[in-house]
């Protein structure tokens, strides 16, 4: 239970943003996170009584972009600022996954979130998260033509 919205954001804001960026890319995801936080601030009296306000706000953010048409190439396709390089087809392949698979794979394997925390942000069970990751990785391997070594 959080007393103030500020405390809640201190502890959970990054996870919320990570989830929405993983699902919708940096531009749309950040905007969705802003919408969700604005909603959270407006409705904090109600949200603070919830068991999982982060998951609730993730769904608020998800709803705010659900009906939008996502442009192609909403995930970054190449490194920025001399960051480590990666396969150019990775971003398009991630965009080819379902939203659930994409957000699960990116949160856990690209952003390094532990399964339990990712499941809380997405408001789903760990087993559901695992299923999405497994399916997403399988599809990525097919799309990118890479073999599995350690899954």
């Amino acid at each position, binding site marked *: 239970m959080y007393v103030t919205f500020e405390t809640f954001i201190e502890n959970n804001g990054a996870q919320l*943003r*990570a989830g929405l960026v993983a699902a919708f890319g*940096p531009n749309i995801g950040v905007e969705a996170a802003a919408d969700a936080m604005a909603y959270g601030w407006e409705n904090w*009296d109600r949200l603070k009584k919830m068991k999982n306000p982060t998951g609730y706000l993730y769904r608020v953010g998800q709803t705010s972009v659900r009906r939008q048409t996502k442009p192609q190439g909403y995930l970054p396709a190449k490194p920025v600022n001399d960051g480590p390089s*990666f396969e150019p087809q990775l971003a398009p392949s991630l965009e080819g996954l*379902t939203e659930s698979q994409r957000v699960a794979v990116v949160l856990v394997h690209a952003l*390094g979130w532990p399964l339990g925390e990712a499941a809380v942000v997405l408001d789903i*069970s760990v087993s559901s998260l695992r*299923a999405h990751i497994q399916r997403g990785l399988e599809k990525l391997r097919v799309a990118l033509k890479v073999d599995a070594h350690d899954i």
Partner: protein
Amino acid sequence: MTFKNENPRDDLFKDLEAFGETLETSSGAQIRSKVVHVKKKQDDPITKGRVRKSRTLLVGSALAMFAVVIAGLTLVKNDEAPSDDIAHESVELIGEASTVYAIDGSVIEGYVVDDSEDEETRVRSENAEPFVRLVEQKIVDDGLLNLKGSSLAEVLQSGGLKIYTGYNPDFQAAALTSIKNSSVPPGDNSVDLVTVDTETGAINALVSRQIPATQDASVTENSVMEHKRKAGDAFGPVIYASALESGVTSQDSIAAGGPCAFKTASGDVNKLVGSSYGPPERAGSIGEELFSNKCFAARLGLFVGKDTVSKTAELLGLDVETVDTVLPIGEELIAPVDLTGAYASFANGGKKVTPWMIDRIEDPYGEVLYEREKEMMQILNSQTAYEVTKKLYDNVAQTNGMGTGRRAGMENHQVAGQTATDAQPTSVSFAGYTKQKATTVIVSNDEGVRIEIEGVNPFGGTIAAPLWADYMEKIHKNIDPIDFIEPKPVEDEGKLLEIPNGVEVEYPSTSE
């Protein structure tokens, strides 16, 4: 001797980590977890090798982000209930998980996908998950419950509710299997499918954007209910029903034939494919024409009038989004589930069939918090419904030696249905029904390019219809066949239908 690498990191994981760094840089704040790879945890195949070290950095960046949010918006504290809390009854949280029931009374396991159960249970729960997510969405979107300030997830997890749905686990499994085994290649193609019970309107199975060759459908997208598309030739039965309800009979003929062209509302000339059947100056009786003859459908719609067709569409529950056309010829945008409900009405003798997912919701004490409307109004003359069905039946059975839906034929059940194929085509479909079940199957290329299948000309009749038949055979395995029966045969010699002057224009030559 060869030594095995103790921590083999394949390229995909390395790429994903690099991608995560880029994603973080692009989003302008710390969103990655601080992780370090130490050693594999044998009990967790997914997170092996990853241990979180610290999240200290997250706090500062989250605060900075919140400051940006506040700075960019003028916010007002809102003590009013949010829009998704519109309500019928209140819900009391009593600390017991809710239960979602299938139409056969079995518990839907998809509320939480549980991979600790046996294989069969796991598969059934995975199959059900998209449907259950849509049930949740429906509860929120339609305000079926007063959530009293709690999130839906909280209410479902702690409210002890009983949610009775129209879901049929066997049908859903059959749908996923038929799509998986169909001739549709994966890649950019996906399949939507929805089945509605023609007697009750229960949505028995619903698949949104399943990737062929997999059993992987979207959990969060609801393209069957939300994605309106051009109905194309599948809109023909609505025009025909309008005509019959206006006094036209199946023996009547239209006083025009051959290719046709019309001006759209914006003034462009819209050329359509003319009748291939009957003399050019006059088509055959309208009962014999095919809905895939676009000039026939256009001229019949012109005779009846767009307003009348729109009213019939509304009666059938079609939430039609109008487009720039002066003709009711299938340019209208319709959600697949609504089209399936309209076809179910034809199967059900003209009674309105409204597709539903949730039958009722009870609280832990058995009090009904929500119950769907069960009244089914007679919206079309039963003879009209039969005539439409007969025409769609002929399209599959090829009674007149022609028809686009022959690949949708079933072994023991009579089938009525219509194909639709868009211009390239990027989308092909078959909407049809037996006496008991109505189903629409849509195969789309999500990138908007032509559907390519080796050795197959892409049409609704060659791609969607066989998939439809394969699935329908599976779900009718334990359903006794019931034939379509004419309520009261009509004797009529037929008359000539003159379409209004001044709408149809001269058909442009090919050089234009």
